């Protein structure tokens, strides 16, 4: 792998950048791999990466039906935080956040992790008590958060309107080390590092069947033919139910559209990420200058990657109330992704009824922030059969009623 650095750029500039090599290879699939990951989203790629890095398993293929990073990994609003309420969540999200801090260096790819800080606004007494509780929980979980006053909120985010006629800002839960990263770069950086370890990332290759022998996974059928494997990881987010069906088991997952939008770019006016859960919207400003905005998910299941405009209206309305200056900005683009929602709004990282077949899904509206941690845990689970970070997120929790409910802490879980 060619090392990226400012020196490499200067050197290549002399030849008008005609000497750069491919970031990842474009291989044809081999007949058999030690491990196959279905889905080259962030979670799938990170799983492959840590299989190689932490466990030396590099005879790995990542199979992607479209282009890598083209699912929700390339559609999200890139909020990274770990101020979750429940212990298992805080553990994996904090692991993930801390991996993000050094990810650019690990991957030698600038993923632009920007710990600009995240505020979750408290706009009712009830919400305020909820965030106070989260702050207490976080203090025991080793997650640095603090409940801040309205004045501090205003100092961190001058464009905010504290005295909204409906929901005045009563304070906020502040995680200074939360922030954003460049979503595509996360996928690309992992892909490049995986490819450099000799792993095959096979794009434009849809998995159409999963073969089993005596209850153990043996191979997958794809649009590029049959590929054998010892172990299989299904990491396909919104399409999890569909792929699990190929392996013959059902998932407690609903797939719904979640939308986001950006404004036209403007000069920097907002350095932090603000989430307003009572009114249902959140906003940050990208390095390009666009205001990046998201809100609630659709109320019905579908696979269209669109969504109803009504949600855009609700979100924008909420944010115009919270940040009145955006009223004269323009919406540049809206889009949607299909998110995989579990009943308790927490992910599934689990063994499955099929031996040697593992699943990682259910990240729903908030899994971008979890990519490194999830990959870390999933790789450990696949390599060793269990992982402390993943153990609580098993499928059996639905059967037992052992939920890890995060909707408690935030109406909008991003």
């Amino acid at each position, binding site marked *: 792998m060619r090392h990226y650095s400012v020196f490499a750029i200067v050197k290549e500039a002399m030849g008008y950048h005609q000497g750069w090599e491919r970031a990842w290879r474009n291989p044809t699939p081999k007949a058999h791999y030690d491990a196959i990951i279905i889905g080259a989203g962030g979670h799938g790629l990170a799983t492959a990466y840590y299989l190689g890095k932490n466990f030396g398993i590099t005879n790995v293929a990542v199979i992607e039906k479209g282009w890598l990073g083209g699912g929700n990994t390339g559609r999200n609003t890139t909020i990274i935080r770990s101020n979750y309420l429940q212990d298992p969540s805080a553990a994996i999200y904090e692991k993930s956040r801390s991996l993000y801090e050094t990810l650019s260096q690990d991957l030698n790819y600038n993923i632009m992790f920007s710990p600009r800080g995240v505020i979750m606004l408290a706009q009712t007494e009830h919400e305020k008590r909820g965030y106070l509780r989260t702050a207490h929980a976080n203090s025991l979980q080793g997650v640095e958060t603090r409940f801040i006053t309205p004045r501090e909120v205003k100092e961190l985010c001058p464009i905010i309107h504290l005295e909204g006629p409906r929901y005045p800002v009563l304070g906020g839960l502040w995680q200074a080390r939360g922030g954003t990263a460049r979503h595509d770069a996360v996928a690309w950086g992992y892909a490049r590092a995986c490819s450099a370890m000799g792993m095959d990332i096979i794009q434009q290759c849809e998995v159409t069947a999963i073969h089993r022998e005596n209850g153990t996974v043996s191979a997958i059928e794809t649009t590029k033919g049959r590929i054998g494997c010892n172990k299989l990881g299904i990491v396909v987010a919104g399409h999890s139910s569909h792929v699990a069906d190929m392996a013959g088991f059902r998932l407690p997952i609903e797939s719904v559209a979640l939308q986001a939008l950006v404004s036209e*770019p*403007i*000069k920097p006016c907002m350095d932090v990420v603000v989430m307003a859960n009572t009114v249902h919207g959140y906003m940050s400003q990208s390095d390009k200058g666009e205001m990046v905005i998201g809100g609630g998910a659709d109320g019905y299941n579908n696979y269209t990657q669109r969504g109803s405009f009504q949600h855009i209206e609700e979100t924008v309305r909420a944010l115009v109330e919270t940040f009145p200056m955006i009223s004269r900005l323009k919406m540049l683009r*809206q889009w949607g992704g299909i998110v995989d929602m579990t009943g308790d709004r927490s992910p599934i990282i689990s063994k499955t009824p099929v031996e040697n077949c593992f699943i990682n899904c259910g990240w729903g509206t908030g899994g971008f922030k979890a990519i490194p941690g999830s990959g870390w845990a999933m790789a450990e689970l696949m390599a060793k059969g269990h992982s402390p970070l993943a153990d609580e997120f098993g499928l059996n929790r639905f059967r*037992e009623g052992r939920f890890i409910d995060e909707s408690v802490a935030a109406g909008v879980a991003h």
Partner: protein
Amino acid sequence: MSHRLPQGGRLIDKTRTVSFTFNGQKMRGVAGDTLASALLAEDQMLVGRSFKYHRPRGIMASGAEEPNALVGLGRDARFEPNQRVTTTELFEGLEAQSQNHWPSLETDIGVVNNYLARFLPAGFYYKTFIHPRPFWKYVFEPIIRQSAGLGKAPKDRDADRYEHFYAHVDLLIIGGGIAGLQAALAAGKLGKRVLLIEQTAHWGGRAPVDGIELGGKSADAWIAATVAALGKMKNVTLRNRTMGAGVYDHGYALAYERVTDHAPMVDGPRHRLWRIRAARIITATGAIERPLSFAGNDIPGVMLASALRDYIVNYGVAAGKCIVIATNNDDGYRSALVAKEAGLEVAAVIDPRPAATGDLIEAARSAGIPIKQGMAIAEAQGGKRVTGVKICAQDSDGSTGEVIACDAVGMSGGWSPVVHLWSHCGGKLIWDAAQACFRPDPARPPLSHDGEGFVFAAGAADGHATAAAALASANAAVGAATGHAITTRLPKVAEAVMGDLAPIWIMPARANIQKRAKMWLDFQNDVKVSDVQLAAREGYESVEHTKRYTTLGMATDQGKLSNINGLAVLADALQAEIPAVGTTTFRPPYTPISMGAIAGEARGDIFQPLRRTPMFDWHVAQGADFEPVGQWRRPYCYPRVGEDRHAAVTREINATRGALGLLDASTLGKIIVKGPDAGRFMDMLYTNMMSTLKPGRCRYGLMCNENGFLMDDGVVARLDEDTFLVHTTTGGADHIHAHMEDWLQCEWWDFKVYTANVTERWAQVAVVGPKARKLLEKLGSDTDLSAEALPFMAWTDAKIGGFEARVFRISFSGELSFEIAVPASQGLEFWETLIEAGAEWNITPYGTEALHVMRAEKGFIMIGDETDGTVIPQDLGLDWAISKKKEDYLGKRAQARSFMDNPDRWKLVGLETLDGGVLPDGAYVIRAGRNANGQNNVQGRVTSTYYSPTLDRGIAMALIHNGPDRMGEVVNLTDGKGGQIKARICSTIFFDPEGEKQNV
């Protein structure tokens, strides 16, 4: 130099001058100008700076596709960044500022990026700024942020208004060019309800500029006659300045009307968002000309050939005195001819096609325009304006060639149909090789709920290059959309016959890398041919990867000019066919629409409707301190002069427990459940048995969701055999009603039950305290309210003090308490009557905080405090409210799951601090040691904590692991500041455990 021509300009009125300012400098245009034409008339070639390299940029286009010429408009509360000058109609006093430069437009420091461009290719930032790690946050990113962004952020609250319109039509026609007009005519004659929208202020689109004759008349005449005819049809609505913004599922479409942007002095909303339900949609959105890629194609003065022609014909403005046209198709010659006719010098038409012939080429030749066939522009020269072009053979590397001096260049790379709206909802495209463009594939349209296509394309948007074909396709589209044979006549068309375009994207064909690094594809974002080729080389081969890696097509114009050219370059680099590479996804809106318009009128006071109880104004008059509870405002307390919240709450509680308090409980949810199966339904809804409740009696009940978790509680009253009145929490009313309907409509549709949310029909007052009955007796009741006649948990109709009322003997405070409901219209009067009559007992209105404290003193749970969606009734010691007899209820099966069924859980207890202090909200109970993930262990948490005036110390409730078995144990809790507090586990009932006060 660009200038106003002595003649011409079909859209302007030269007799009316309009003054405006650009960067503070006074300028003059005329009525009918756009800001773009007015700037050009004033020879303002330099209008802005590009995003990345801060290169000087001028006006490139004449419409919505403009990538370069964006300005900030207006000031203060009416300032708006990033407005395209090409779609800004000029008005008196307009103020515009150019963007993205410092210190000024002419001298911009940021232009160093231009000189460093070689070191800043596509995606350079992914490869650097990696070390040292803290530098990204503290050094690199702040610099990048500052230099990115375009316009300035607005600072003030928007002074304008916005609104929404709704329309339901048979046919929505988007685009008021000749195809759209013809389609409207055809559909109008069929009697269909038609809405025809056009984004500009003018009807007719390009036809008048292109010199086409319709029905033996000028295009202008035909358009005027057609618009007049449509105006007479009652079933047809015409709206200009209204852009089709998006097409969504099931025929939902959005249109964006710029109502007063062109006339800010006129009263009215600035923008209007149309939410349209259309059975069928026709997109007659025209086509957009593509630029050509040659070195220096971004220098001010280089523009689309069609734009050059638009400015001459529509506004009487010439982009230069000496023009060069570069074109790979015949239409480019139109621009040359128009320029020539306007008296400008046309120095050359440069046509890479070796031997093209056609009407327009012949016309140009006979007009004496030099035509250079098989030739290309090797580079455009100039800095802040173009000064000439170096030309060479197309089939060369462009290293040598003659220079032709000129001050404007028009370029035409062919036309791309505007397929955005067709594509928004899943319409697919086919590649039209002859015209080198994507056009709608009629076999794969967006599908509606019925599986039928609901969008049809017409005119240039459907890939028709001639007016005759465009008009015919309009009739055909109406026919296909309506299923009717169309008999509406088509006008006879006289237009030039045109030859084929050559799919030439790069000039010259063998341009070297230095040249390719100066050929712009995406002008605003500074993406060049070399960048796309780099992306391909590095394996970012999917068109989406290329787009994201290079930022091609991600600017405010969303690639209207750059997409196809970029695709072509990518396809070439990958040695693939263009259709195999495919397009990126088209997403709404077509051009950016204001957030204000999306929000509509729902802002400020009507952002979310404020719900007020009938007594609201009384609370306000008393100086109540309100808190938002759902959409309601409820008094938190009623502080008197000099009192803080704490003092007020303490006084309210003491007065209530001591004598008499009054609570406005009107916000409490009230849902009627009625029907022969009401009892059966209630038994499924609640964990306890409700069907056995006797009319005249009340019962406290719990509602769980399918997962077994407690979701709401409240008192149910049975009104008669068939009718229950369900009380929910204030916050729960709406979603509990929805929950009921969900089950009734989706699962138990055979139940004969109706529900009605009557929350706002009733004003409800809790009369609370030892003197409560005395007060009611004083007012006089026609019904016996004694403990014997109306015991605890009974209700009765009564006439109290002349008010028809329903009286419930229920209590949430532990006091003797009557909750009395009167019709909402009488709520205020009733309340005032109670206040007046209660004066002798110092009747004290109390707010939500006193309510909370009093219920906590009694150990009553509060939904949202003791519950959080993870708590089951068993955790709260409410097993008694779970029927063992019922076969089923919502949550029963879930509660039988092993983890929930396990008695080893966090359970509700009371907590008292050792020093009498108040525990902090949200505190956790700590357990020694750490878990497998290194987190401190916990064994419980505080759910409610208050200062109790009654006991004069802190009280709390908490869920603690096996709590009820650990009475008296002292546990450690977080104090929120890094330390710990001790508290003792105790009963949840802190006050009057026997219920002596309430059951009198």
